[in-house]
């Protein structure tokens, strides 16, 4: 069948953001604005113990004194923190024992998202915790996990049922006062996921959380805490979407990873929040603090595919505290239209023989700006630290920009640091080669971009890798020219 350019154009226009639907579920939303009462009310609503309420208030106090950071290479209208509702929960929620009790409309939402809570997904071996508008809706596969002693639940449940773990680790990697958005999150976080892998256990399946902002005028503040006890292993996936709205929505999450001795955590993110329409209207402001701490012989690996959000401000980091620990960061950041991304990582080498690898691929198209910002720090006692960083940028069209800001600070003579960065465009001869073999330009670009990002895509778990590839294609559609 002949497939004309006209048809392609039409398809592209309609295909813009396929997750942009709004599920009409009655929500229980708090009045807009933020003050101590709201913080206390959120805490009450979640039936939290007193120490948690105090912890939130402490964070709120600190936040009031802080200023929004300005250093990032992004410009956006400052969100009005008093015009946001800080809590919104799907109403007909409470506790589900089986899927039958779940609001059918909600289930339908998940189906449209391609996330099915049904048997099929269970067969695929993914345990999913879904956070919709702040509240964790369902966690599948809980029983199988419980047999192994793995705790995987929403953080509010964890606060109630495993307070000793939460109390010990929450805020230990990202303190309340860490930065403006982390402080805000600490004060008002409404839900999130909690995961604990006991000593020596290898988690038999990928754990997955799904975030979605549904309600208009709400911010999403989720908090994720993953603890891998000695000698354990876990692979964790995180996916995000939001319906398209022409106002900006705020998302300020905090993720803390704790890898105790000999443990390994693999944390993968596919971020596909609504990026705004092609005129740069709307979209999600994504201000996320992610950090992990590695104890002796442990390993944390971050993999991220960032294709969504109007503004991304995100630096998944590793504190390599223990000797022989390893930190990895693999990232693809794609920006199109008016998107802006300032993302990268921090590798803090404290222990001896620590190693870190940074592979960052930035692709900018349309009128977007894409920045890599990273820090590699080797402290004076971090003997034999090793780092390899590579950041490559691909530019499509001359209205976009690619920026790199790598900071390298070394205080130990045994350190070996290598950093390289390149910026280039897709070669005309590459495209010509594909054309000549009957591959149209659009497909050729998708091919080349896939090749460019292969190193990172390879690091994603199977189920995600396919989705991520599709996402790349969608994000870059219409950018040929």
């Amino acid at each position, binding site marked *: 069948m002949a497939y004309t350019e006209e048809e392609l154009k039409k398809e592209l226009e309609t295909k813009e953001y396929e997750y942009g639907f709004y599920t009409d579920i009655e929500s229980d939303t708090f009045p807009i604005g933020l003050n101590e009462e709201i913080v206390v009310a959120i805490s009450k609503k979640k039936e939290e113990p007193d120490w948690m309420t105090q912890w939130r208030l402490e964070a709120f106090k600190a936040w009031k004194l802080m200023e929004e950071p300005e*250093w990032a290479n992004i410009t956006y209208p400052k969100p009005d923190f008093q015009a946001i509702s800080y809590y919104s929960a799907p109403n007909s929620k409470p506790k589900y024992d089986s899927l039958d009790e779940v609001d059918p409309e909600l289930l339908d939402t998940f189906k449209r998202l391609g996330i099915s809570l049904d048997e099929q997904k269970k067969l695929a071996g993914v345990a999913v915790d879904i956070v919709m508008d702040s509240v964790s809706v369902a966690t599948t596969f809980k029983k199988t996990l419980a047999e192994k002693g793995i705790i995987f639940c929403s953080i509010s449940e964890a606060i109630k049922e495993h307070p000793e773990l939460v109390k010990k680790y929450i805020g230990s990697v990202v303190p309340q006062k860490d930065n403006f958005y982390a402080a805000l999150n600490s004060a008002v976080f409404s839900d999130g996921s909690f995961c604990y892998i006991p000593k020596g256990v290898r988690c038999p399946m990928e754990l997955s959380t799904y975030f979605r902002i549904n309600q208009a005028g709400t911010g999403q503040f989720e908090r994720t805490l993953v603890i891998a006890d000695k000698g354990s292993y876990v692979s964790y996936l995180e996916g995000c979407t939001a319906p398209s709205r022409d106002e900006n929505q705020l998302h300020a999450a905090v993720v803390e990873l704790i890898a105790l001795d000999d443990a390994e955590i693999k944390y993968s993110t596919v971020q596909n929040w609504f990026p705004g329409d092609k005129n740069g209207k709307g979209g999600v402001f994504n201000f996320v603090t992610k950090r992990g701490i590695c104890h002796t012989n442990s390993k944390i690996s971050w993999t991220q595919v960032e294709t969504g959000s109007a503004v991304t401000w995100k630096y998944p980091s590793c504190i390599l505290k223990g000797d022989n620990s390893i930190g990895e960061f693999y990232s693809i950041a794609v920006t199109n239209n008016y998107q802006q991304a300032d993302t990268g990582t921090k590798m803090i080498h404290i222990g001896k023989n620590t190693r870190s690898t940074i592979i960052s691929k930035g692709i900018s198209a349309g009128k977007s700006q894409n920045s890599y910002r990273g820090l590699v720090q080797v402290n*004076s006692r971090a003997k034999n630290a090793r780092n390899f960083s590579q950041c490559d*940028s691909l*530019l*499509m*069209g*001359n*209205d*976009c*920009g*690619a*920026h*790199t*800001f*790598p*900071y*390298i*600070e*070394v*205080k*130990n*003579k*045994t*350190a*070996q*640091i*290598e*950093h*390289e*960065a*390149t*910026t*280039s*465009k897709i070669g005309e001869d590459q495209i010509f080669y594909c054309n000549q073999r009957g591959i149209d330009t659009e497909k050729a670009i998708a091919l080349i971009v896939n090749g460019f990002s292969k190193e990172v895509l390879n690091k994603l778990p199977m189920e995600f890798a396919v989705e991520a590839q599709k996402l790349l294609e969608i994000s870059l559609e219409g950018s040929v020219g």
Partner: protein
Amino acid sequence: MDLKDKLISSFMAFENKIDVEHPVHDIRSEAFKNFEEKGFPTKKEEAWKYTSLKSLQKIDFSIFPKEVNALENKQVKKYFLQEIDTYKIVFVDGIYSSFLSETTHDGVDICLMSAALTKPMYKQYIDVYFNKVASKEDSLTTLNTAFSREGAFIYIPKNKMPKKPVEIVHFSTGNEASLMIQPRNLIIAEENAELQVIERHQSLTTNEVLTNVVTEIFAAENAIIDYYKIQNDAKTASLIDNTYINQKSNSVVKVHTFSFGGKLTRNNLNFYQNGEHIDSTMKGITILGDKQHVDHHTLVHHIEPNCESHQDYKGVYGENSTGVFNGKIIVDKIAQKTNAFQQNNNILISDKATINTKPQLEIFADDVKCSHGCTIGQLDEDALFYLQSRGIPKKEARALLMYAFANNVLESVRISELKTSINRLIAEKLGVRLGFDL
């Protein structure tokens, strides 16, 4: 009284000494206002994150040195290139020394900034070039502009080339307990002109010296300029070097910076490419020990298409020294087909030495080739062992490896006598005698 207040009050005294009716004085007053508003940069500013000027500001520098400071030729002979003849513009405590200098007006003008600023025959150049590429925002540059009076002025007309290289040397005698000098240089090479300049700052005693120098360089079409900065000053001397280079089509400007001495050295090297097919090269060797601090900040702004820039900085850091490298490449939207390369390699030889490096790219054009590479490592143990096994003592073997490491930069020095002299400086710095010339 801190240094800023002192400078502010000195400005009034300065105004009494100069012709305030002269149009240049408007530029000075404007610049002074900017400095008064901004003051000295602090570590809070991104560009000064790793370099603090705090301790310098506590020193009671004298701003206006005593007028007469004669130096004997033999006292300072070793600081000049000896094997070849050069034009010399020599300043002693910031004041021109005609006795030590050799200037010319024969076809080319190699003379003084003070003359250029006051004599009517130079007005045409001052109007067109003075303070035209130097920043009007940067506080230290405007501080220099406000006090600009003396320095080197070089004008090379179309198709001309001076017979020999030019040496610009600043001596400080230590007649003052502590001295701050602010030389201002203006270098203009017209179409097809060629020029080689060597700049050096030398303190003759251990008294504190702070130099805040601004150099403006204009390279017209097809001009070729080689600029060498030798920074091997006493351990009590600090230098803030602000160099601004404006290049036109097909011009080639190379700046080599050799940083071995000094207490605190900050190099702000800025290239602006206003034309096509321009080549800008920045190279540097830094060898530090003690508590020395060297900060290289480079900026290449690719404004037009089809240009190139090359950066290659090598650093060896020992003892408690600190090295900073911040290289910034900006490629404008229309600057297609730009090739910009940046390389920064460092060797740490002490546990107390620190390196902070930030090679930065900001690219707005899509058809470009830009890359930066940065490494931090040690000397190769195997190579060291190999040399030792061939009977070369450890110290010499290390020095040999460091030579090899830095050789890329030395290779492109086009004055062979200068190369020899830098080799000698490196050997001295590494504490070895090598039985060969590179």
